[in-house]
């Protein structure tokens, strides 16, 4: 293999391996966060036998959101995110992080227009699209129900 071939090989493989690493890290981090979520859910159903499946699901979300917010406040979550990429963004803890992180950053611009307004810079689009989609789905199901 001469120098040219080698340079070609490096060019072909190096960005891919780096990409592969980010995907693997996202897989492991995302998987681990979901395992923690499953453990929280199992613990809650053992502790609160009176709660039904839906309530346990909602409560699990609340606990995970609390953990995500707390770790962001302590400055830990963004450090995890540096390595984990999408693995820390996509779980519900990442949604909490997307609220707390800009809220802390813009706190110095005032509580109302800094903290309270900027905390929705990422969560805002998520809530708008999610709530709109749910209303649309609800209306479609309602119309389908009329013909049943």
């Amino acid at each position, binding site marked *: 293999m001469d120098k040219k071939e080698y340079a070609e090989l490096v060019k072909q493989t190096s960005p891919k391996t780096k990409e592969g690493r980010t*995907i693997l890290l996202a*897989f492991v981090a*995302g*998987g681990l966060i979901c395992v923690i979520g499953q453990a929280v859910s199992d613990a809650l159903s053992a502790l609160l036998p009176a709660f039904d499946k839906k309530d346990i699901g909602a409560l699990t979300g609340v606990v995970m959101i609390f953990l995500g917010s707390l770790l962001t406040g302590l400055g830990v979550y963004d450090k995890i995110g540096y390595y984990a990429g999408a693995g820390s963004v996509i779980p519900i803890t990442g949604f*909490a992080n997307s609220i707390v992180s800009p809220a802390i950053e813009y706190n110095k611009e005032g509580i109302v227009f800094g903290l309270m307004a900027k905390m929705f810079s*990422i969560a805002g*689009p998520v809530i708008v699209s999610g709530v709109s989609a*749910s209303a649309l*789905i609800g209306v479609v199901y309602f119309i389908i129900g009329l013909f049943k």
Partner: protein
Amino acid sequence: MDIFLTYLKVFAVGGLVCAIGQILINKTKMTSARVLVTFLLAGALLEAVGLFKYIEEFGKAGITIPITGFGKSLAAGAIDGAKDGLFKACTGGLAAVAAGLTAAITFGFVIALISKSKPKST
């Protein structure tokens, strides 16, 4: 052994969802807001067409802890509400995620109030 297998499935499905997200980020340079919106809508759509419950049966928290689970709850609430008329069809989604949203907003507000802004360490 059973519980180990359950957790292994949770890990695999959750990891796979996040790996797909990372591939999207790598290929399209999507920002995290766009990734979150995409996966939220994917979860809502999967619930609307009735496929979500099969993935949830297999992967449990692996699909409900990612933001897809938030979208699923929104859609499921709306579908449930649609049985009680048009009004509940519109409000059911937000009602179903009231706990999560309230938690995210209040925890976010309180924790941001008491945390100091740190210089980015990257």
